[in-house]
């Protein structure tokens, strides 16, 4: 074990929506470290709390779980940490079970499993204020006697009960739970036999062997339960023998185990819970009857989503401008402070530009994370999934994919990071793969430029502009659903989709928790994706700078002469069939940094003087004129309306965003999926562009 810390390790365990994060934040304050469990994309939260005597205590906030028989990557991490299977996380010495006291029975199911682990447990009953408000009473003393462990009523939101909890955590004599539960007779012999074999043949600690044995019996898939190491031959044989025998007897062993736990919990609950007088519908019920109403439900969903998008586009604009100006100012300052040379250019045009690209998108990402957090925190997220499930099921997904996909209209990065709430790994991967097809805000400048270049007059009729824009959004959306449908039928074919989801009661959002979560997620994005993005920026800078042209060359000549220019020439045979020349090719290559870079790099390639690329509101009129005068060597116009349309279609589908690639790499834990995604998207972009351009040319456009 690590010598650096001798602090006892506490794990907070509980169902989703029971207030775990709030308790964790209250216990650790800002002393927390957020990261990922290596190998899986599950958030790892660890922090330090202090005992009543001022001694440090390590606290791990485990992902929410309904059962140790894991069904999602989140639950698998919780199970593995508790069973001491993860080398990257210390095995918890003590376990704090947090339960939503308004819903004691179901919450106690997990507690019941945790009590089998042979470690001291503290039971914290959260949301006692709501229990009181509902007229229900819980006899804490009796519960404590029945379980033999400290039971602490608390209200994590306002810190009530926190001192008592810390006092309990400071105890050195925490008792082991007294289990008022006997494994049903028909199964007890099997559990004993498996337990002995697991301890003897599989090297499981005697303490956790019983829990491991019970888990083997509740899950159909023994490999999944045993973790990466397969069961020893002896244990597997015992398991198979018992299962065969039970099958012959027609016994449902997994069901029997679950039933018997619930029976024990039911007896306990009957003893300690006094239900309040049956009252009418709760506030939550009343909100729900509006929010999931066949008419009002859609209206509210529409309003909520419009509100989010309007605030992203209006609020994010200011900080994005400031950041853009700040980055330019910084680059200017470095330019003045350093002697001219390659190092200076590497810093200003490579590193600072690259960092600028990442940071400029940050306000959007932060705002989106904030709203996603708010939707999760209040309970609305589950309702949106409930309403949308039917529609998503048409393409083989479920309702939980809705919010991530919708967020991707603003930016695919938070959308992809929000897919963590999707339990099924295949559904999650499908959502990640198609999310970047939703037209994000970085495509807008490209669409706008092409619409401007397409129309003859100076002023594009508003209706045409809006119509074309909506058309692009529609194609992207249909594309996303089409590919999702395709992937779920071929590549990521899985078991029939299930949608088992709790609809948590509505709660007022804990703004502090939402804000903390937002900052942590954005930090993860910067830390994890930042390096990849910086690396690609520097490569792109290198490609457009070297080999150097003579000092007398104009910027346009320099770009032509550079590797990027040569690459543009090199790919011309590939893009000629879709109506693009090598100059557009340079735009495609350079806008791999981010789609909107297409506009500024096109300005350089087509020699537009004094084009202020750092300003979003730059006048694109001179650029438009330059594009209109661009010609093929044989004198044909380059940017015909058909080519403009083809280019827009190309940008709808093509994966032109290194930040997204970096995030997909992080979220899927391999290069395999981002590479596949880039290939399929760019391939689809080429094919659709080819069809449009060739058909368009053939019919005379």
């Amino acid at each position, binding site marked *: 074990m690590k010598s650096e810390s001798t602090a006892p390790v506490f794990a907070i365990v509980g169902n989703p929506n029971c207030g775990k994060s709030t308790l964790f934040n209250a216990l650790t304050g800002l002393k927390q470290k957020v990261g990922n469990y290596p190998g899986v994309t599950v958030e790892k939260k660890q922090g330090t709390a202090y005992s009543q005597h001022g001694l440090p205590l390590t606290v791990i906030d485990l992902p929410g779980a309904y059962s140790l028989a894991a069904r999602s990557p989140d639950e698998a991490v919780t199970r593995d940490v508790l069973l001491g299977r993860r080398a990257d996380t210390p095995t918890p010495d003590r376990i704090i079970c947090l339960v939503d006291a308004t819903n004691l029975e179901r919450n106690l*199911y997990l507690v019941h499993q945790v009590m089998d682990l042979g470690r001291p447990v503290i039971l914290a009953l959260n949301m006692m204020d709501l229990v009181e408000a509902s007229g229900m009473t819980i006899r804490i003393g009796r519960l404590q006697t029945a379980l033999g462990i400290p039971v602490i009523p608390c209200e994590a939101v306002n810190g009530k009960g926190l001192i008592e909890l810390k006092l309990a955590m400071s105890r050195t004599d925490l008792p082991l739970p007294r289990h008022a539960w006997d494994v049903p007779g028909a199964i007890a012999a099997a559990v004993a036999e498996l337990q002995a074999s697991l301890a003897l043949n599989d090297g499981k600690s005697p303490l956790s062997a019983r829990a491991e044995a019970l888990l083997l019996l509740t899950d159909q898939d023994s490999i999944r339960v045993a973790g990466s190491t397969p069961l020893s031959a002896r244990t597997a044989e015992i398991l198979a023998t018992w299962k065969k025998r039970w099958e012959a007897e027609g016994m449902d062993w997994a069901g029997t185990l*679950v039933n018997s736990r*619930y029976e024990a919990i039911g007896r306990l609950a009957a003893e300690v819970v006094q239900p309040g007088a049956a009252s009418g519908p709760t506030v939550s019920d009343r909100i729900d009857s509006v929010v999931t109403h066949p008419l009002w439900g859609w209206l509210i969903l529409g309003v909520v989503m419009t509100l989010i998008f309007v605030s992203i586009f209006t609020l994010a604009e200011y900080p994005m401008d400031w950041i853009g100006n700040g980055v330019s100012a910084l680059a200017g300052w470095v330019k003045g402070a350093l002697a001219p040379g390659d190092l200076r250019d590497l810093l200003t045009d490579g590193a600072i530009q690259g960092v600028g690209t990442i940071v400029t998108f940050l306000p959007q990402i932060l705002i989106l994370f904030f709203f996603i957090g708010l939707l999760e925190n209040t309970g609305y997220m589950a309702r949106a999934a*409930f309403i949308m*499930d039917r529609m998503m099921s048409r393409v083989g997904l479920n309702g939980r994919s809705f919010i991530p996909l919708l967020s991707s209209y603003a930016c695919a990065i938070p959308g992809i990071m929000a897919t963590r709430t999707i339990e099924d790994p295949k559904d999650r991967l499908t959502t990640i793969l198609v999310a970047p097809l939703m037209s994000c805000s970085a495509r807008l400048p490209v669409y706008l430029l092409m619409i401007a270049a397409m129309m003859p007059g100076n002023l594009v009729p508003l209706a045409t502009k809006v119509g074309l824009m909506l058309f692009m959004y529609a194609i992207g959306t249909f594309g996303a659903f089409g590919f999702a449908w395709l992937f779920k039928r071929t590549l990521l074919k899985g078991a029939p989709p*299930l949608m*088992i989801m709790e*609809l948590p009661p509505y709660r007022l959002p804990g703004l502090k928790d939402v804000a903390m979560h937002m900052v942590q997620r954005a930090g993860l994005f910067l830390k994890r994706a930042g390096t990849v993005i910086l690396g690609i920026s520097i490569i792109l800078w290198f490609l457009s700078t070297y080999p150097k042209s003579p000092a007398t060359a104009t910027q346009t000549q320099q770009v032509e002469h550079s590797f990027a220019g040569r690459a543009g020439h090199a790919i011309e045979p590939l893009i000629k069939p879709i109506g693009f020349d090598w100059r557009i090719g340079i735009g495609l290559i350079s806008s791999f940094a981010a789609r909107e870079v297409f506009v500024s790099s096109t300005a350089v390639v087509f020699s537009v003087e004094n084009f202020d690329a750092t300003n979003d509101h730059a006048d694109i009129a001179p650029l438009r004129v330059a594009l209109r005068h661009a010609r093929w060597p044989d004198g044909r116009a380059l940017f015909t309306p058909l080519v403009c349309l083809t280019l827009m279609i190309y940008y709808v589908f093509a994966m032109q965003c290194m930040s997204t690639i970096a995030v997909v790499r992080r979220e899927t834990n391999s290069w395999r999926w981002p590479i596949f995604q880039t290939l399929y998207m760019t391939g689809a972009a080429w094919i659709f562009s080819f069809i449009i351009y060739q058909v368009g040319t053939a019919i005379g456009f």
Partner: protein
Amino acid sequence: MAAEIRLSELAAGKAAVIRSFPKSGSGFLRLREMGLLPGTTVTLVRVAPLGDPIEIKLRGYLLTLRKSEAEHIGVEPAP
């Protein structure tokens, strides 16, 4: 004793007691672990605006599942 019907056939607002439950399938094991067991009383709260999934109340909380799962669960409507 009322006749057993499918959970998916239960009318909105009606309560029923779970009678039969499929033995296999990890999804059904999870439903059990969420407290949906033979003998449990459930109330069908509502059906989603597009006709699927359904929302039920059991043990004091709300759960949603698709009709394709609810079809396999037999319930006896409360009188």
